[in-house]
């Protein structure tokens, strides 16, 4: 699904990722953990193709293609989804309208017919239940006036509608209270399937109590210092990151 080899990424001329290797197979859930400033969000952004994140070395292979040559919307249509850490507000643009445009762009790319309004609404209603989105969300502008938790739920809701192959969740747990976290995690779990891979970028182990990863990686200073099973997350929770760094040094 996703194969990252020796990835170096610079932002504003400063090297942030310094040789990341990562291999995610279909159906797997990988957690990327690490202290602040380790490069976690950079990894998420570079996968989605944000401007200003320059790949200076290495490669990103996605379904056998070089991902770095694709524009952000092309990646999205190919099935790469980023759940943003800070979802932006877009005044005046209706939430549901954005979603319909996005879904139809993706479907068109896949050679599927576009959904008409009735089919689309049926799909939306079905998926809204997954993350318990409030009804009035349909008529609101994109993320405008949403609470932090609502914004995060909206990201997962979009994930549920757009059905990507590879979803990257950038600190989706931050700012969520325990109940909201459970709702989001249940939503994500229900979307797991053998064809869909997940990359969870997170600071805390908390999310991993609900979404059990196949592999956990520790990213620090732009490199993956240690990888392991889900028990690694618990160890990190208990001991912090310093020992990983010390061991790697």
């Amino acid at each position: 699904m996703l194969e990252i080899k020796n990835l170096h990424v610079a932002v504003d001329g400063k090297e942030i990722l310094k040789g990341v290797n990562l291999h995610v197979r279909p159906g797997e859930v990988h957690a990327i953990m690490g202290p602040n400033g380790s490069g976690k969000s950079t990894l998420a952004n570079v996968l989605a193709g944000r401007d200003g994140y320059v790949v200076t070395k290495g490669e990103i292979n996605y379904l056998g293609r070089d991902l770095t040559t694709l524009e952000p919307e092309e990646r999205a249509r190919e099935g790469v989804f980023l759940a943003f850490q800070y979802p932006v507000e877009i005044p005046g643009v209706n939430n549901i309208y954005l979603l319909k445009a996005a879904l139809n762009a993706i479907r068109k790319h896949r050679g599927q017919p576009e959904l008409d309004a009735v089919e689309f609404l049926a799909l939306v209603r079905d998926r809204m239940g997954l993350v318990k989105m409030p009804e009035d969300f349909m008529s609101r502008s994109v993320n405008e006036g949403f609470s932090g938790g609502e914004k995060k739920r909206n990201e997962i809701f979009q994930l549920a509608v757009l059905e990507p192959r590879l979803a990257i969740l950038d600190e989706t747990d931050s700012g969520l209270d325990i109940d909201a976290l459970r709702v989001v995690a249940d939503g994500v779990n229900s979307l797991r399937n053998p064809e869909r891979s997940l990359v969870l970028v997170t600071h805390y182990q908390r999310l991993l109590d609900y979404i059990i990863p196949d592999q956990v990686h520790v990213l620090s200073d732009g490199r993956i210092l240690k990888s392991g099973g889900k028990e690694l997350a618990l160890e990190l929770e208990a001991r912090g990151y310093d020992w990983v760094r010390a061991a790697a040094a």
Partner: protein
Amino acid sequence: MSQPNREIEQLVQREYEHGFVTDIESDTVPPGLNEDTIRFISAKKAEPDWLLAWRLEAFRTWQKMRAPNWAHVHHHPIDYQDISYYSAPRSPKDGPQSLEEVDPKLLETYAKLGIPLHEQKLLAGVAVDAVFDSVSVATTFKGKLAEAGVIFCSFSEAVQNHPELVRQYLGSVVPMGDNFYAALNSAVFTDGSFCYIPKHTRCPMELSTYFRINAAKTGQFERTLIVAEEGSHVSYLEGCTAPMRDENQLHAAVVELVALDNATIKYSTVQNWYPGDENGVGGIYNFVTKRGDCRGANSRISWTQVETGSAITWKYPSCILRGENSVGEFYSVAVANNYQQADTGTKMIHIGRNTRSTIVSKGISAGHGQNAYRGLVRIAKSAANARNHTQCDSLLLGDRCGAHTFPYMETKNSSAIVEHEATTSRIGDDQLFYCRQRGIAAEDAVNMIVNGFCKEVFRELPMEFAVEAQKLLGVTLEGAVG
């Protein structure tokens, strides 16, 4: 799809059928302006003496006036002697006769707007008065309107058939000497639309006028007068277009609206005059005076405009809120791309008690465009409990354009509440990226965000106009971002 657009194209196309000439041969007077020109126009139209006298008085007033210089626009002085003040297609059969003869770029624009030129059919519900250069070409649906007692005809016909109404209301909202361009228009106006809605009548259909400047070196000076009697209701749409020419052409129209007790007039404009090319060459100077008089109690006048065209736009559709409880509204989207300049806004003059006004202005600047909102809210001492709310937002696309806000608020009544808010924004990189991450192409994302920005105005437009306006915006801003 826009019905008025279909109408006009059909009219044009109908004429296309028989033989063909590149330019429509027009009955055009040589450029120049003096009293003889005015006598010529008046004679050509067989006008009554009082109207000629009125024109001449306006001309003499105009001669003593100077062009205004306070607007935030720059242009070379206009040579008023180099303009032709009368141009009429010689006969309907002389029009362009095949699609190949229509400017391909104009066709391209229409195609982008989704107006299929080749299959236009009369769509019931819209009556069109099409003004081609200076004269009114055809008015449809006259019969159905007549049943309802509604008079909708060209201004020239109104002068012939309803002189008493014209005489009563002409110049009663925009006096002949109101401003430089209004005075010029009063002297030389050639045609336009006239509309009269009798008492307690709801006009059975949307009324529409379509303006087009075709001949070179002509000015267009149309005059529109709408009178809504007690308890009547009318919605009026106005569309404008002009082919590409590399010289500047002047369009100085006057629109007067009169709303009596409990009457409502809704006036919508989609203005797409030729804006000049991407280097600022050519384009229409759109210097227009539009004013509505809420003369009666509980009357309402609502202006909605989408201004995407013209090299320079200078217009301030205004409301005089004279009647008690009368309501004035102004909803505007103005775009200035490339080297376009727009100085537009409104005046809300509160005179009556409990009068209310709402102003929503959305300015979009791109390229080297300069976009200014200029608005006056005046609360007279007599306007107890008057209310105004103004929201004025600017969107900048690129770092070479300008967005300016010049509101004037003058209040003389302590029970009035006047509020003004203005903001400036651009399309954030993060907004664009967010949309693209969801699979939406950058250009579509920009369109989506721009349309979101304009939503409050678009929803005031009649449905088919709103669709056209949205598409027009997309065409106008093509290439402005990214």
